[in-house]
């Protein structure tokens, strides 16, 4: 190696740089949902002028997205680490009913909240430990869903538990003009994102979802991360149940399966890979916000809400179609580039 070579500024071989088209496609795949949301906001701002583009309405949308976002966070974390948790509605119902029973029996509010959240953690732990025995997580969580739905009805005596006004501080009450659920979602997503992207455990958890065997062979105890995924999912489910209860000041023992479908829609819109290992909580949050934005905008315009459901479904189909096309196109182009590099010796 000559001195000239050692002092020359490093230059990148053009062939080492991804083609602009590929970079653009990856941007659309990873950031497209943000662009879509901005477009929706702009579109509704013009169409539903002057009611849509206001601070009050922004808060309304954020508040409406809160519940979906909390449940979607649970679903997303489960999927990212390789396990779809279908027990979420049951955990939410049981947690909120337990809290309701405690509050109506004179226990302090914090006790009810902590008990409900502990329920979520324990349910997640149980789900995870059973799933580790080689059982299919979907079947395991369906079983848990059934158990928890029944238990919720048992402890509530089969009836709703009304008059839980002590929980309004995390439901309808506002802080600095912003409703409690929005603050809860903000805290949850900040903590969740930091955990998944900035901590060793979070990064390992995502890796377990991507390739469990590879993680295991690299000496990492993958089982504990699978259980951790279920625990986080259960915690989010219990938190969602509490916030729902706080919003309507009533605990309902009926586990609504609609929770899972709405949350899954937000997660799928966010491009979280259903095979695990890939996903981002901020995108999931935007997925929930998109659902709330569509519903809000159409309602303000007086459009029949059925169109909201239709539009959401079309968006979802479009999103997964686009994701598939982009992934295939990117792979094809990169392979072509690599082959060209190999034959020409430029790479």
């Amino acid at each position, binding site marked *: 190696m000559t001195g000239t070579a050692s002092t020359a500024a490093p230059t990148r071989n053009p062939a080492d740089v991804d083609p602009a088209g590929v970079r653009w496609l990856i941007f659309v795949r990873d950031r497209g949902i943000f662009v879509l949301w901005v477009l929706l906001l702009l579109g509704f701002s013009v169409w*539903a002028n002057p*009611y*849509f583009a*206001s601070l*009050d*309405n922004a808060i*309304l949308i954020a*508040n*409406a997205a809160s*519940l979906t976002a909390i449940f979607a966070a649970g679903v997303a974390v489960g999927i990212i680490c390789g396990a779809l948790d279908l027990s979420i509605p049951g955990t939410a119902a049981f947690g909120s009913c337990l809290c309701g029973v405690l509050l109506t029996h004179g226990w302090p509010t914090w006790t009810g909240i902590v008990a409900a959240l502990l329920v979520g953690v324990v349910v997640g732990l149980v789900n995870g430990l059973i799933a580790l025995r080689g059982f299919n997580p979907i079947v395991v969580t369906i079983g848990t869903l059934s158990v928890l*739905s029944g238990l919720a*009805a048992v402890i*509530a005596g*089969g*009836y*709703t538990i*009304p008059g839980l006004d002590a929980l309004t501080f995390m439901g*309808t009450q506002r802080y600095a003009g912003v*409703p409690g659920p929005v603050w809860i979602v903000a805290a949850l997503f900040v903590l969740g994102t930091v955990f998944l992207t900035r901590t060793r455990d979070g990064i390992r958890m995502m890796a377990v979802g991507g390739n469990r065997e590879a993680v295991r062979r690299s000496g990492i105890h993958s089982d504990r991360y699978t259980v951790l995924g279920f625990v986080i999912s259960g915690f989010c489910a219990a938190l969602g149940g509490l916030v*729902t209860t706080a*919003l*309507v000041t*009533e605990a*309902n*023992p*009926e586990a*609504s399966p609609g929770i899972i479908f709405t949350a899954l829609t937000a997660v799928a819109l966010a491009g979280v890979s259903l095979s695990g290992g890939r996903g981002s909580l901020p995108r999931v949050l935007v997925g929930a916000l998109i659902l709330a934005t569509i*519903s*809000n905008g159409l*309602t*303000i*315009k*007086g459009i*029949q*809400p*059925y169109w909201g459901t239709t539009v959401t479904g079309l968006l979802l189909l479009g999103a997964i179609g686009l994701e598939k096309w982009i992934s295939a196109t990117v792979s094809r182009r990169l392979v072509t580039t690599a082959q060209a590099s190999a034959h020409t010796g430029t790479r």
Partner: protein
Amino acid sequence: MSSATRRGRAVTIAAVGSVALLAACGSSTSGTSSSSAAGSSSGSAAAGALPKTLVFSPLSLAPPALKGLSEGVKGYAGSKGWQVLVQDPNFDATKQTQQLNEVLDSGRAGAAWVIAVAPKSMAGILKAAQSKKIPILVNGRPDEYGYSGAQPGITFDYIDYAAGGKALGEQMGTCLNQKHGGTGKVLFGVSTPGQAGKQEFEAAATSALKATAPGATVVQSIPIADRAKGQTDIGNALQGTPDLAGVMSSTDEAALGAIGAFAAGGKTLACNVDFGGNDEVLNNVKSGKMYASVALQFQADMAQSFDTLARMQADPTAKGQILTVPQKVVTSNG
């Protein structure tokens, strides 16, 4: 039957829970899904040799309202010396017919009360009950079960949605006339698609509103299935129509959601009326947060249904009746 329809039926009787529970509280039943009245075992009726055992088959026991209804039936029938067998088909029409077939064949049933998951699937059950001379009451109109009128041994009990819708519209109109000069924008919280009686109820409500308060306008109809979503959707609608004067609702959930939405928006709702009348709604009417509720009288209906079945035991071959669930307009004045 679609799940929406099933849920619709459940929601329709959502007001029953605590009312029926009151009836149950006065009974000596054990509270299990199958209970015995004190002093009654199989209790064969002397005349027709039919046991005093009522088979109660609702859509499911999962919804609190239906659980409440089953408790109410057990309490009321138990107080009359009857045993009640409660079944839980869990919204499964096949399971419901199987369970009913088994109990009708067993000879234990002295009468049956069925809230059918799929009325059309009940044809075999109704014929079997007729042939075994076991009186049966089904919820719904005769045409839903393929009949044109009353049938031997079968009583039909249904909610008169047209009458309910008319009362709802009239109450909203009356409220607007009293509080808003007979004009104003109204949001209609409707039931979700596929629910029984939806079309006739909504048509009757809007035409009655127009007749009572011609200056009122229904600016938006929003299907509302649960309270939390109702609160969100009505909040959104309020954003687009800040001068809403009234909300009239097909369900209690929508009315309660409207109260939450207006409170969250820092606004006052001049006229809030609904169809249903659960305890929470009636408390809101009493306190003045709501103008009126067209309340379904499920306790009275439960009593008339059971009493009709008990009477039919005397002559199970006689034509049954066509009953309607009583309705009562409740305002803050009573």
